[in-house]
C-alpha cells in the first residue's frame, strides 16, 4: 500500500490532499477562533499531519481508530465530512456531536472513528477493547490507537498494552511523539526512546520520522498487516513536532523560538511535495491543484458550519441516555429518570 505513495500519482496526491485538508482545516479553525466566532479551546496538530495521513491510508472499512484531544487530523484522515466537523467546532446542531462535544470529543463512528478524547490515554484501553471485539467476532478488522507521548506516562496506557499484549489483540498503538506533554519534554520524562518500551510488553516497537508520510505509511502498514494476520499488537513511535502551543493558553515558555523555527523547516507537507516533484511523479500544477482543492473544501466546510442551526437546550435531558426498550414503553419510568 504505502510504497504506492512514491509510485502511484493518484495515491500520492490523495495523501497530499489529506495533509492539506488537515492543515487548512486547522488554520481556518484558528482564524475563526481569533475572530471570536469559535469558543472554548482547541488543540492544533499543525506540523503533525503526516502521522494520521500515513496511518489511515492503510485502513479499510470497519477498522476502528481512537483519537486524542489533538484529534482533527485523525478525523479528517479517516474520512470524516469536513462540513459536519466544522459545524461541530462551531457548536452547531448539524455537527457530528450536535454541538455537545466540540473539538475534544469529535467522532465519526460511521467511519470507525470512536472519538477524540479529553482525557490523556482515555482512548488507549478503548482501542484495545475494540481490538477485543475484532478478535472475538473474527471480523478481520484492526483498531488503531492514536495517542501522544504524554499518554505513555498514564496507567491506562500501561494497562491497555499489558492486556492487548497478553491476548494478542489486533491493535496498533501509534504514538505521536510531538515531544511535549503540554510543557513536559518527552526527552526529560522518558529515559529511553518510547519505542523501546514496547519490548517490556513483548510486542514490536519501532521509531519512525513522523514528518515523513511515506515512512509512517510503511511502518503502520507492517503493523496493521501483522495485527490483521492475528499476530498481535505493535507500537509505533512517530516523532514529530507541534508548531502551535498546547492549547490557546500556551505562552511557549518551555521551548525556544529557534527550536520551533527548526521544526517548521521540516514541514511534512512541503517535504512530501518536494519529494514527489523531484521524483517526477507529479508536476507543480498537480501539487497546486491538490492544495487548492483542499482550500475549496475547507471554505465550503466553513460555509456549511456557519449556516448550521444552534442546538435546542430543550433536547439536552433526552441526550444523556440512549433510549432502552423499557423506557420507550413506560412513561412513568421516563419521568422517574429525569
Amino acid at each position, binding site marked *: 500500500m504505502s510504497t504506492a505513495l512514491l509510485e502511484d500519482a493518484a495515491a500520492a496526491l490523495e495523501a497530499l490532499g489529506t495533509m492539506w485538508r488537515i492543515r487548512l482545516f486547522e488554520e481556518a479553525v484558528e482564524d475563526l477562533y481569533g475572530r471570536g466566532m469559535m469558543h472554548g479551546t482547541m488543540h492544533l496538530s499543525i506540523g503533525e499531519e503526516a502521522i494520521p495521513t500515513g496511518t489511515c491510508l492503510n485502513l479499510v472499512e470497519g477498522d476502528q481508530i481512537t483519537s486524542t484531544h489533538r484529534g482533527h487530523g485523525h478525523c479528517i484522515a479517516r474520512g470524516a465530512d469536513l462540513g459536519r466537523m466544522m459545524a461541530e467546532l462551531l457548536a452547531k446542531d448539524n455537527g*457530528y456531536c450536535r454541538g455537545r462535544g466540540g473539538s475534544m470529543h469529535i467522532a*465519526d463512528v460511521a467511519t470507525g472513528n470512536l472519538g477524540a478524547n*479529553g482525557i490523556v490515554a*482515555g482512548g488507549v*484501553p*478503548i482501542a484495545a*477493547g475494540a481490538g477485543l471485539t475484532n478478535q472475538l467476532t473474527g471480523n478481520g478488522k484492526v483498531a488503531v490507537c492514536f495517542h501522544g507521548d504524554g499518554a505513555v506516562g498514564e496507567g491506562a496506557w500501561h494497562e491497555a498494552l499489558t492486556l492487548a499484549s497478553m491476548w494478542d489483540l489486533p491493535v496498533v498503538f501509534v504514538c505521536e511523539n510531538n515531544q511535549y506533554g503540554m510543557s513536559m519534554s518527552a526527552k526529560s520524562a522518558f529515559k529511553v526512546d518510547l519505542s523501546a518500551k514496547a519490548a517490556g510488553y513483548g510486542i514490536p516497537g519501532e521509531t519512525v520520522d513522523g514528518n515523513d508520510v511515506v515512512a509512517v505509511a510503511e511502518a503502520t502498514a507492517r503493523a496493521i498487516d501483522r495485527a490483521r494476520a492475528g499476530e498481535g499488537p505493535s507500537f509505533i513511535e512517530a516523532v514529530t513536532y507541534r508548531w502551535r502551543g498546547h492549547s490557546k493558553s500556551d505562552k511557549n515558555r518551555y521551548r525556544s523560538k529557534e527550536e520551533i523555527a527548526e521544526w517548521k523547516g521540516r514541514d511534512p507537507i512541503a517535504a512530501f511535495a518536494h519529494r514527489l516533484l523531484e521524483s517526477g511523479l507529479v508536476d507543480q500544477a498537480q501539487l497546486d491543484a491538490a492544495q487548492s482543492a483542499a482550500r475549496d473544501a475547507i471554505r465550503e466546510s466553513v460555509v456549511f458550519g456557519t449556516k448550521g442551526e444552534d442546538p435546542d437546550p430543550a433536547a439536552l435531558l433526552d*441526550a444523556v441516555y*440512549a433510549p432502552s426498550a423499557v423506557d420507550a414503553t413506560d412513561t412513568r*419510568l421516563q419521568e422517574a429518570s429525569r
Partner: protein
Amino acid sequence: MSMREMTYSEAIREAMALAMTADERVFLMGEDVGLYGGAFGVENDLIDRFGAERVRDTTISELGIVGMGVGAAVTGMRPIVEIQFSDFTAQAMDQIANQAAKLHFMVGGQATVPLVIRAPGGSGTGAAAQHSQSLEAWFTCIPGLKVVMPSNATDAAELLLAALEDPNPVIVLEHKLLYKQSFEVPETFAVGRLGVGRIEREGSDLTIVATGVEVQRALEAAEQLAADGISAEVIDPRTLKPLDLPLIVSSVVKTGRALLVQESVRFGGFMGEISASIVESEAFGHLQAPVRRLCGLDVPIPYNPDLEKAAVPQVGDIVREATALVREW
C-alpha cells in the same frame, strides 16, 4: 408460580449463563473470574461451560479492563466487567465516569455503550477500610450511568439481565454479605426492569426506604416493630438511577413518615437525595414528622467486628429510629 431455593451468587451466575447462552455478544472479564471461579465464587464453573474466550481472566488492571469493556461495548459486544471489590472502582474511575458514562452524550448519540459493570460492595466481612465501602453515591451523580443495588437473589439475576438489555452503561452494586444467602427464586428468571422499585412489605405508620443489605435489616426491623404495634412499609428502590420516585412519594403520602436507611455514609449520601425529593414533592404536605436518615457513620469501615457493626445501621438501630419517629411525632 413454583419457586426454588438459590443463593444470591448462584442467581447471578445463572443469569450470566442465561445471557451468554442467549446472546453470543455477551462475555465476562475480570480478575480471577475464570480459573479461580471468582473471588467470591460467583463465577464458579462458568469458564468450563463457556470457555476462556468468554470468561476472561484479566491482569490486575481495573482501569484497563473497564476501558476495554467500553471499547468492546461501543463496537457491538455486550461485555460484563467484574470489579472484584467495588472499592477498586477508584482505580477505574476515568473509564467509568469520563468515558463509559459520557460517550453517548459527547458524540451526539452516534454511539452507545451497553456495558455492565458488576462490583460487590458493603461491610460485614472484616475486610476493613479498602474492601468494605458502599460507594453508590459516587455513581449516582454521574449523568449517563445507571445504578442498580439488588437486595435479593431474584433481583440480582433479573436486574442483571435488564442491565444487559440496556443500551447504556449500568453498574450493579452487589453486596458481599448476600452472596452466600439463600433466597426463594422463581423457576425461571425473567428480564427485570430498571427504574422500578418495590414495596417489600406494606404498612401504614411509616415508610422505610432501604437499599442493599439494609433492605433485609429493615424487613427484620419491621417484624419487630409490628410486634410493638407499629406498622412499617418497607420500600426497596432496587435501581438508584433511574429512581422510582413516584413509588416512594406515594408511600410517604400514605404513611406521613419517612425513615431512610443506607449502609453508606450519611454526608453526601444517596438518602439525602431521596430526602430532598420527598420534601420537594406532594408528600411534603402529608408529612407528620421530619424525614429522618439512618446511615453509616462518617468513618472508614473499621476492622474490629464490633466497631464494624457500629459503623453501619443494624436491625436494632432501625427499630429504635422508627419507633422514635412514630412515637415522638
